[in-house]
């Protein structure tokens, strides 16, 4: 393993260390740049190791896992495709992700692999009472607010139109919600991978910077700007659930029915907790109006 190691500390206290072999170090440097991670010497509470291999389907387990008499010493390949392979262990808090060396520098696939790598953090979040959610994240006087909606509804437009201080736009596509040690929910901005995939952006996101989650706004396009409370708590649960499922559904297409069932049950439980703890609102927004003033009034 090279000296290439980066650290990500999350609101739930977990400390993630990303490390890479020499062949995958350039890839990891780019991931760290996008996520604004800092170099580290820490061991961390969870670790993801990246390496590059020629033929994933034929190659032996990574050297760092070893083989042993029983084959793979409890390590199991979770995914074994042509583009990347993931090894997990039931008890060791490490993941080994092997990248097909042909695609380490590919202008699009390298970002797809970065996106996939972060699913390990999503899985951890689910087990810890949180979830990723398809929503933009902004802060108002340091309080985090989510703007959730299906694609093409206007999250990115709202994100771009937010005025400056006291507002700060943090991300426009995906947010990670976690429970901190006090049991309160906090939100981390996550990268918009499509910016890199299709728009060749050089954007970065301060993923480590979490804000306390103060409200969730469910966005719809309208002729008048308005924010109204979601008074029906069951409706709030369903809306948060839908926004979270938009992140999870692509993963669930590739897993066993038992794994999907367990994950969706856990997700349902977590979003019920989130919707119960965080005020939810319907946000009707126009293209020209000052929708953020409606949000400010709701937050007051």
């Amino acid at each position, binding site marked *: 393993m090279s000296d290439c190691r980066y650290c990500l500390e999350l609101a739930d206290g977990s400390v993630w260390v990303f490390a890479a072999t020499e062949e995958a170090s350039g890839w990891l440097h780019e991931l760290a740049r996008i996520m604004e991670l800092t170099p580290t010497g820490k061991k961390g509470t969870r670790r993801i190791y990246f390496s590059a291999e020629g033929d994933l389907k034929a190659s032996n387990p990574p050297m760092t896992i070893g083989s042993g008499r029983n084959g793979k010493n409890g390590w199991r390949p979770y995914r074994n495709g042509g583009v990347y392979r993931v090894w997990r262990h039931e008890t060791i808090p490490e993941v080994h992700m092997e990248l097909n060396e042909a695609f380490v520098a590919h202008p699009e696939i390298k970002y797809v692999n970065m996106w996939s790598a972060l699913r390990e953090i999503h899985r951890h979040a689910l087990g810890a009472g949180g979830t990723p959610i398809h929503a933009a994240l902004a802060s108002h006087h340091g309080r985090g607010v989510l703007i959730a909606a299906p694609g093409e509804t206007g999250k990115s437009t709202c994100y771009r139109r937010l005025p400056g201080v006291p507002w700060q736009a943090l991300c426009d596509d995906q947010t990670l919600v976690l429970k901190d040690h006090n049991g309160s929910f906090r939100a981390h901005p996550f990268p918009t991978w499509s910016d890199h995939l299709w728009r060749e952006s050089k954007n970065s996101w301060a993923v480590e910077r979490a804000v306390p989650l103060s409200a969730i706004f469910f966005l719809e396009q309208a002729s008048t700007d308005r924010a109204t409370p979601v008074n029906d708590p*069951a409706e709030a*649960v*369903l809306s948060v659930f839908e926004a979270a*499922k938009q992140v999870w559904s692509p993963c669930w297409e590739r897993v066993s029915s038992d794994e999907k069932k367990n994950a*969706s049950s856990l*997700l349902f439980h977590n979003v019920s907790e989130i919707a119960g703890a965080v005020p939810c609102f319907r946000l009707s927004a126009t293209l020209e109006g000052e929708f953020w003033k409606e949000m400010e009034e709701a937050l007051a």
Partner: protein
Amino acid sequence: MIRSILKCVFAPDGAERRACTMTDIQRPVANPTVVLREEFDDWAVLFDPDSGDAYGLDPVSVFIWRLFDGKHTPSEILEKLRDECEDGIPDEAPDHLGEFVKDLTSKGLVGYAEAA
């Protein structure tokens, strides 16, 4: 006290309602794997872990759902609902109940236990 029969279960994608007739031979029974989460001020959410889908239930629907135990016929369910509602139940309540059960059945949330 439940005052009147309200709109039945809704689904996030807006389930199509179909007219339905039910007989008193059929006793609806809730799918045992479905989770009913009730911490929401008399409202509740039904979660189907097999499909990963969730549905909201208003208070009347929650009351009815609890009677889907395979022991109550539709007539008996309506009778219990009539006893609960201060203002009685509308004439179209049997049709509403039929639609409700049909909706849940189409989603795999409810089945039938036949009378012995």
